[in-house]
Every structure is written in structure tokens, then in C-alpha cells.
């Protein structure tokens, strides 16, 4: 479980969500090349600090490949391919900062912490409860799909549309049942209690959170004043 992951520093989920927004702003405002390189470099550093060394290396290698394509491959390509490839290299690179932070969130933050941070931001319960149930449901769907896929293989069901139909019907049927049972279990455990909910996880901003956010802000400013 991620909670016991002691390698590297830990960020507050709220910091990560804010960084995601900052990365978006930076990605769509900068024009100077060095800012892009700096953003990618610093995010890779952040990933490494948070213990995701492998993932950081993958992103850097991928990034260098794209830059390499732009500078060394595209000049020698025929014109039609140039348009295609430059769209690919430039725009995918624009997404890189967001993807990297996304990877960081997925790897280091349990769903529950995200929910708690949303609660701390006073997002209404009415939005949080459906969201948490949805997130709770994804792994359940995966589990069920495995069974259904097995069943289809045993019965030689072929063809994409046929398979899709066979996948959806049992899943919907079981979803209604599961939803009912899940709600019953939740209300017998007091989910409707109007009292303010408490939480045993103590989420707090630490020094690393402030540093990350300050660096983020510097990049926003830099992206807007450089050409």
C-alpha cells in the first residue's frame, strides 16, 4: 500500500492538484524553449525525489526522443510527413508536464487522500460521495470483466459488437445489485450522519509543498515574461 511507502518525500495531495493546474498554465503560456526543458527537468527531479525513479527516467528518455525527432529527423523528411510529425512532437510535448504530474499522483497518492483533500477544500459532500463511489467502482469493474471475459471464451462468443454487448449486460445487472448492497452497507455504517466527518489521516502542508508551489509560481511568471 502506498501509505507505507517510505522512499522519498511525500507531497500533500492538494499540492499535487495545484501543481497540475500550474503545469497546465505554464504549458500553454510559455514560448521560450529553455522553459520547457527546465519544467521537464524539474518535474523529473520531483518524481525522483518522490521515489518514482524508474518513471522519471522513462519520461526523460521519451522526451529526449521527441526532441531528437524534431531536430534531427524532421529536417530530412518529405513535406507531408513533416506536418504530421511536428504536430506529434510539439503537441505531445506540451502535454508532458501534465502527464508527469498525473503519473506522480497515480503512483504516490491513494484515492482516499484525494478525497480527503477535496473535503478539506469544502467541496460539497454531494459531489464527493459520488466521486468516491465511482473511484471505488473502477477496480470492481476490472474484477468483473475478468470473469465475463472467461465466460465468453468458454462460449466462443466472437465479434466486437457481440462481445461488447455480452460485456455490458451482465455488468449492468450486477451493478444494480452491487449498488443496492453497497448503499445498504454504507447507511448501516452511518454515512448519512450530518455531523462533520473526522479523519484519521493528518494531511498538512510541509516545507516541500511550499517549495513546490513557489517553484511553480516562478515558472508561471517566467513563462509570461520571456519570449
Amino acid at each position, binding site marked *: 500500500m502506498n501509505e507505507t511507502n517510505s522512499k522519498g518525500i511525500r507531497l500533500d495531495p492538494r499540492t499535487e492538484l495545484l501543481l497540475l493546474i500550474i503545469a497546465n498554465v505554464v504549458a500553454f503560456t510559455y514560448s521560450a524553449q529553455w522553459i520547457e526543458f527546465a519544467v521537464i527537468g524539474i518535474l523529473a527531479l520531483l518524481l525522483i525525489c518522490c521515489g518514482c525513479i524508474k518513471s522519471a527516467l522513462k519520461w526523460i528518455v521519451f522526451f529526449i526522443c521527441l526532441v531528437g525527432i524534431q531536430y534531427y529527423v524532421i529536417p530530412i523528411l518529405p513535406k507531408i510527413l513533416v506536418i504530421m510529425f511536428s504536430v506529434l512532437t510539439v503537441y505531445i510535448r506540451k502535454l508532458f508536464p501534465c502527464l508527469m504530474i498525473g503519473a506522480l499522483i497515480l503512483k504516490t497518492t491513494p484515492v*482516499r487522500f484525494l478525497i480527503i483533500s477535496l473535503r478539506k477544500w469544502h467541496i460539497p459532500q454531494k459531489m464527493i460521495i459520488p466521486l468516491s463511489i465511482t473511484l*471505488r467502482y473502477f477496480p470492481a469493474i476490472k474484477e468483473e470483466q475478468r470473469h465475463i471475459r*472467461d465466460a465468453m471464451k*468458454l*462460449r466462443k462468443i466472437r465479434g466486437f459488437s457481440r462481445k461488447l454487448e455480452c460485456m455490458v449486460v*451482465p455488468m449492468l445487472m450486477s451493478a444494480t445489485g452491487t449498488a443496492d448492497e453497497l448503499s445498504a452497507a*454504507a447507511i448501516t455504517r452511518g454515512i448519512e450522519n450530518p455531523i462533520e*466527518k473526522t*479523519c*484519521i489521516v493528518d494531511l498538512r502542508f510541509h516545507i516541500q509543498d511550499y517549495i513546490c508551489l513557489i517553484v511553480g509560481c516562478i515558472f508561471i511568471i517566467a513563462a509570461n515574461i520571456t519570449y
Partner: protein
Amino acid sequence: MITYLDSLFKGGNFLINIEQVNFSYQGEETHGSLNQINIHIKNGECILLCGKSGCGKTTITKLINGLIPHFNQGQLTGKTVVDGMIVADTPMYQLSEKVGSVFQNPKSQFFNIDSDSELAFGLENNGIAPDIIRQQVNKTVHDLHIENLLHRDIFTMSGGEKQTLAFASVYAMNPEIYVLDEPSANLDRASTLTLGKQLKHIKSQGKSIIVAEHRLYYLTDIIDRAIFIVDGKIIKEYSREEFLKLTDEERHQMGLRTIYQKNPPYTIKSDIDGELQVKNLSVKDKQHIIFDNVNFSVSSGEILGILGSNGTGKTTLMRCLAGLLKEHSGEVLHHGKKLSLKERNAICYMIMQDVNHQLFGESVWSECELSRDEKITDTEIENSLTFFDLLDFKDKHPMALSGGQKQRLAIVTGIVAGKKILIFDEPTSGLDYDHMCIVSQTLKDLAKQGHIILVVTHDMEFLEMTCNQVVQIGGNYF
């Protein structure tokens, strides 16, 4: 004086009073309805609700935990009082502080993805201070010896572990009353016995327990009284002694399961010249061996039981036999000829524990059409449907059938696909005595028709009644 008034208010020393209750579910005339129910339960008592499926025992548990009338709609008259609270007039969250509920399906009663959150969930909902929650959670872990369940992804847990976690997260809320609805339905023998120990533990703390259950053997030294229900009426109340004195015959008449912890018939056959032979079969995943060196053989007309605790790879073994998963080493032979993955897939069929996963058709008939072998004629399908009492329902949607009918339909789809080997995964989980007998008979009939039957099961009573021989996966089961 105050205690006297208090007790008067609580209905004369009873913790739970169910008085003259009638109930029927919306849109359901008979199934699970209640008729003139009166039950009085003292503090610290353990009550067993027993009877056939659909007799209304689950409905009674819902009267106590408040799901009726707060969650399930229906016609309700009469009054239920729990610890001085009139259930119908008390909000669910208030009841939930006094009454803890454990349900049948381990999959659908956890709300978080990790086990630590789940243990704290109920307390967090009720706004308990974090320090106290931590204390409670630690106490729970210590009392129930569930250190191995901490910091876990719930989706990687076995059914037994999930159910233990469900029980633990209710225990953490420290309710006065525990209501359990068929808590052992999906558990193997070891987990069932663990549950029995946990119930004994809470009883020794003076908590009251109401348990609706088919499986009785793990409850025999916990219950104080047993209430026998037929068609929503209380037919008889037994003291523990009276209940344990019932003969097998009387119990079968009542549709109840055994009260003895049965050992399986120990006839592990060592000959290896059967029609289907499995030799030194091993399956590995990326990191480790799931099972190793499985050997057995079985012929047409025989029913082989496959035993093994949760997590020993029974499901993996079935998937491997059915050609859904590649073996690491070893072989599967049919009539002496080695079967490839594809060939296994062609002759094996699996009837899953949750048959809802394998019914796709719009009607019973189209379900059969969907999987029929080219050689099978319409008459043959009709014959199969008639044999399994399904012909009358041939235009019905499979999902509109009862659980037993769905299971039989799944069997028919295997038969009309021309499958020789039928593999059953826990075909009797949550079934009462009568339904178990029906499943047992069905398997025997299929064997008689020349099928090879493999059954993975935890149900010793069923095993004893049904299987000719037994193999064990992954060490001793006993």
C-alpha cells in the same frame, strides 16, 4: 428508580422488541414477507434465525438494523424497538451507533479501496475524534488478530479476508448489537471457523448477536436460542439444548443444514488411468508459483471434489483446466492424448459461482442458441431444457430467473455447446438444505449422462453427498 423507568421504557428488560410485525416487500407478495412476528431479545443473547431460503429471516435482520423501513420499501405494520429507540422513528445513523451489520456478500460491503480506511470508515462518519479512532482501530486489530489485513488493497484480498475485514470494521464501531445476515455464505471452512471464534469473542463481551444463517456448524456453541421460520411465520423457538438434540431427519424435514463439522470422505484415489488425467500440473504467474505438481485422474460418470483453503489456487486450477490460462509445466491428457490450451477450451465448461457473469442472452432460448454446437438439434435443446425444468421459461429473460434456475441454465448452455467436462465453482454457496440436495442430484444426473464433473467446494455436507473422490490443492485442508 431511573433504571426501573428505563427498563420499563425499553419494554421490560428486553434489548430488542419486535411486536406484531407484518411486512411484505414492494412488488413481492410472498418472498421474504413476514407474518405476525414477535421476538424479544435480552441483552447479551445470541439468537439464530433459521429456515429455508426466502422464509423471511433476512427480513427480520432488517427490522433490527433499520433497513426496514428506512431503505427497503414495503408494507409494514407493528413495532420494532431497539435499545429504547423505535426503529421506524430513528434515523439510520443513530441506529448505526448501536447496531452493527455484517452482510452476506464480501464484495459489496466495503466502501474504501484500502483496508485501513475501511476500519476507520464508520467512526469517521460519526465524527469521532481522530485519536479515539486510532485507539479503536488498534484495539480492533489486536482483539481480532488481523494484523495481516492492515495496509492492504482490498481488491487483492480473498473472500474470507474481506468478510473478516467487514466484521472488523463493524467491531471498531463497538456496537451493542451485531446483526449478521448469512455471514458465512462465501467463506471457506477456515474462515467460517474464524468467524465463529470472533462471534464467541463478542458474546463474551456481553454483546447481543442476531444471526440469520444456513450453515449452522460453526454456531452451535454460541447460540442461546434458535428461531425457526417458515413462510414468514415463527413456527417454533428452540433453546440451544433442544435445537442441538434435533435428529438429522428432523433437521432435513425442516430444510436445515447439518450442525456437525463434517470431514470429507477420505477416498483420495491414487490410480492415474482415468479418462482425464492431470499430471504434475503447475501454474506460475510473474513472481511466484500459484500451485505446483497437481496430480489426479477422473473418468466419465465420476464426480471429483476439489478442496483447498482460500488462496491456494483452486480458481487458477479451474481456469487452467478450462483452457483459459497457460500451464507452466505438466500436462492434461484426455484418453491418453495431451490436450493443448485450445483443445481444453473446447471440451471444458465452467459453471461460475456467480452465474450472472455467464448469461448473456435475451431469453432462455436465445441463451441456448448462442452457445449451441452445430450438431445439436432444436429437439435436443428442448430435451435439455425439459430435463432441467426450464422449458416453461424459454421466452423469459435469464435475469428474471431465480438463482437456482440461472445455475441450471448455465449448465444447459454448457451441455448444448457439446462440452464433456463440466467444472463447478462453489455451486452451493448460500443454499439451504433442499436447494443443496437439488444441486447434488443435478450433478449426479450429469455424471450419469457421461459427463466428467469437477466441483470446487467448501461445503463438506454437499461433498459427502455428491462426490466419489476428492483431491486437495496446496497442503492439508484439515
